[in-house]
């Protein structure tokens, strides 16, 4: 203090503050440590603004390597309107455009009103780092202490900036290094990838090569296997005709081992001596001219085995498509079996033709789309059409009986439309005037072709007619037979009332002859005589109804009534056989449309059979039950149940055959005829064994059989007894 007595108190304070500020400025580098240039500058500018009460401060850093130029402007807030930072920068640019070395240490600014003092402080020894511009609206700026602070601050800033720059540079270098390392690493990785890819590709190629090699090998193996396992003989020969390959099938077929024949001439091995010369000539011809008749074709020839036996083979020769002298592969197949099969087929065809001929059946096919008709030999024969004729429906139509032609044409039309199976019977009228009956059956195959057969049934038709006639005759015999048996019971039936008549008449005479005559008694007996006479007449009438010469007539009839009549006729016969007849005739039986007499014959037959079946039965009642009842589906059923000897189960199917009988007497025709009568009524007649002893015979007929007319039964009518006379 004593050293500076002349200093005023104000001055002392000023100095004190100045020293504090200096200390602060000197402490700044510690604050800046590690910061970047902009941090350095911001701190510095804040400190200077505060210390020197500046109105404006600007720092501009020159563009140093790797760093962007930086300019920071800051102005005091207390000031009124100030030029914008941009304007200030522009103004400063004017001043600073020149070389910084030429900058005067102190400049009065041109901007503003001139009261503004501006100080330029270079950063770095030569201003190479940049410049600080400080301005205050004071004429005395900068004072001595202020200038000192500014220059210290500039120095400090230079040092700080250098360090910051250095640091920043280091950072940048480190970063660049890092980047380079990263880039290099990436490059290495890429190269590595590339390398790997190349390796992979190479491996793939190698694998492929291996696979191809294996494929090739496998294909060779397979080819060898094919050749080895082929069922055909495969023999290859070189251009001289020497065997170069002889597969196992060939070994097997010809009876040579491969090693025995390799190198030998083919002709010497498998061609019979008689053909060898021809083979050699052909081979030589080919070699000389290239013409071959045998290449690429299938030939049949004779081959010879090791044991000398000859056999037929099919041979195909191909040239092996390789460079060099020609070589050939021969495929040979033993066709002994095939030839045999072919012969068998031919024989079978011959059999079929013969069978068609014998059975008078011809077969045909018809392709609907094209109307292509194919006939078997026999069919031409049946139709008497020339074998070479072009088959058309028109031509076939000329053989159809005029009355059947429309049916024929209708069937063709329907078949064409509906393509369903066909069954028709047609008459043919042949050129020689003969009429034939044919049965045609055809099935559609694949929806577009009919396959069928035509059978000449002319003979069958006539034999059917003959059979029908025979059956009628049988029926006739049966009726005569049953009549014969009936004669006794008819007599019995008539004798009863006759007996009454005779007795009554005798009594009457006796009464009248008495003295005095018993007139009342005589009258009574005469009355009874008349009644018995009528009774006898009724019996005769019933018989006449049953046996009168009368065409069968279909009429509405009461089956119960008809049954009662038959019972009345059979009763004495049954009684004689000590048969107890029970009747269960349904009250609600519907009316039946049928031939009454024919049905009565059936019922009579059934009763007679039942009675006879019980004739040897002595250990049980000879019970016979006749029953009528409505049957389902608008039918009526009549059954006759006996307690007779029955029949063996195996005989059930034969019962209805003509001449089959379990009885010692009688012809056994009755049931067969009965059945045909019932069938003509569209009904059914059957026998079933009872739970107990005996059998029940039943028939069931529709009440109103469709299509049953008098004509129907007329055609197959059973001749009446008088026909036989």
């Amino acid at each position, binding site marked *: 203090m004593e050293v500076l007595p002349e200093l005023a108190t104000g001055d002392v304070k000023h100095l004190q503050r100045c020293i504090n500020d200096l200390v602060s400025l000197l402490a700044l580098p510690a604050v800046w440590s590690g910061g970047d240039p902009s941090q350095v500058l911001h701190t510095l500018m804040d400190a200077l603004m505060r210390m020197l009460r500046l109105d404006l401060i600007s720092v501009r850093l020159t563009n140093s390597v790797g760093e962007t130029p930086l300019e920071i402007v800051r102005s005091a807030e207390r000031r009124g309107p100030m030029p914008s930072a941009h304007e200030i920068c522009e103004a400063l640019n004017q001043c600073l455009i020149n070389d910084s070395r030429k900058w005067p240490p102190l400049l009065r600014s041109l901007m503003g009103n001139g009261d503004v003092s501006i100080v330029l402080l270079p950063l770095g020894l030569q201003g190479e780092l940049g410049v600080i511009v400080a301005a205050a609206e004071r004429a005395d700026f900068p004072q001595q202490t202020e200038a000192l602070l500014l220059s210290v601050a500039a120095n400090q800033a230079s040092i700080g900036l250098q360090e910051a720059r250095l640091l920043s540079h280091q950072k940048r270098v480190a970063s660049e290094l890092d980047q380079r390392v990263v880039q290099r690493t990436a490059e290495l990785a890429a190269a590595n990838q590339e390398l790997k890819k190349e390796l992979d590709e190479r491996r793939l190629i190698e694998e492929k090569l291996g696979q191809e090699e294996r494929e090739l090998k496998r294909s060779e193996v397979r080819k060898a296997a094919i050749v080895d396992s082929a069922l055909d003989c495969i023999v290859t020969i070189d251009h001289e005709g020497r065997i170069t390959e002889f597969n196992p099938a060939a070994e097997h077929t010809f009876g040579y081992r491969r090693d025995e024949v390799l190198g030998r001439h083919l002709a010497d091995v498998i061609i019979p001596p008689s053909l060898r010369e021809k083979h050699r000539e052909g081979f030589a011809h080919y070699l000389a001219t290239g013409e071959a008749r045998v290449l690429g074709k299938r030939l049949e020839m004779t081959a010879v085995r090791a044991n000398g036996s000859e056999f037929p083979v099919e041979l195909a020769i191909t040239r092996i498509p390789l460079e060099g002298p020609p070589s050939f592969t021969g495929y040979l197949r033993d066709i002994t079996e095939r030839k045999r099969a072919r012969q068998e087929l031919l024989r079978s065809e011959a059999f079929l033709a013969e069978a068609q001929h014998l059975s008078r059946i011809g077969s045909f096919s018809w392709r609907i789309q094209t109307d292509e008709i194919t006939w078997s030999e026999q069919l031409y024969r049946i139709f008497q059409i020339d074998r070479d004729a072009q088959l058309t429906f028109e031509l076939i139509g000329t053989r159809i009986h005029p009355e059947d032609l429309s049916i024929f044409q209708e069937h063709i039309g329907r078949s064409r439309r509906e393509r369903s199976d066909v069954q028709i019977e047609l008459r043919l009228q042949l050129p020689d005037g003969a009429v034939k009956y044919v049965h045609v059956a055809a099935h559609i195959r694949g929806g577009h072709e009919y396959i069928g057969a035509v059978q000449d049934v002319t003979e069958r038709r006539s034999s059917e007619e003959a059979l029908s006639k025979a059956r009628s005759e049988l029926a006739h015999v049966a009726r005569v037979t049953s009549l014969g048996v009936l004669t006794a019971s008819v*007599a019995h039936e008539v004798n009863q009332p*006759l007996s009454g008549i*005779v*007795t009554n008449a005798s009594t009457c005479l006796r009464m009248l002859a008495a003295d005095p005559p018993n007139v009342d008694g005589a009258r009574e007996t005469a009355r*009874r005589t008349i009644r018995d006479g009528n009774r006898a007449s009724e019996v005769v009438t019933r018989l006449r109804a049953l046996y009168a010469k009368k065409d069968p007539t279909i009429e509405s009839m009461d089956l119960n009534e008809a049954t009662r009549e038959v019972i009345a006729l059979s009763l*004495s016969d049954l009684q004689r056989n000590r048969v107890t*007849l029970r009747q269960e005739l349904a009250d609600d039986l519907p009316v039946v449309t049928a031939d009454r007499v024919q049905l009565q014959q059936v019922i009579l037959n059934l009763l007679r059979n039942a009675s006879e079946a019980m004739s040897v039965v002595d250990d049980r009642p000879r019970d016979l039950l006749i029953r009528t009842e409505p049957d389902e589906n608008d039918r009526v059923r009549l059954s006759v149940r006996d307690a007779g000897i029955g029949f063996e189960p195996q005989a059930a199917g034969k019962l209805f055959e003509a001449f089959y009988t379990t009885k010692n007497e009688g012809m056994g025709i009755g049931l067969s005829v009965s059945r045909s009568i019932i069938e003509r009524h569209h009904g059914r007649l059957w026998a079933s064994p009872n739970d107990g002893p005996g059998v029940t015979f039943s028939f069931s007929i529709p009440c109103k059989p469709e299509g049953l007319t008098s004509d129907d039964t007329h055609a197959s009518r059973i001749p009446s007894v008088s026909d036989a006379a």
Partner: protein
Amino acid sequence: MVLRQERRAAERLLVSVIDDDESVRESLPDLLGEFGFAARTFSSAEEFLASDCIDQTRCLILDIAMPGMSGPDLQRKLKLREQEIPIIFITASTDKAVRPQLIERGAVECLFKPFSDTAMLEALNSVFHPTQ
């Protein structure tokens, strides 16, 4: 004849007729009456066996074929019961072979329907007047 006619009804001998045919049952009793017999009719053998006439019946006119028990059956039955009654068989059958068989078994006669009054009378006489 006259004498027989004058015989009182109570004294008349009983002839039983068994036949399932009604006309026989109606006509025969009058004829038998003319012959001086009392007559009873039955439609079956069973009916006769169930009646109280067996002991009084001096002669049976019996049909052969009947439902149930037949004439010959009844004949056997009566024989077994030791109630033998002279039997005249009548039948509508035409089988003549039955007659000798039946007579061999003890029947008085076998008449085939229609039979005459005299044939019947002869048969009856052979029962009641065997010496004639």
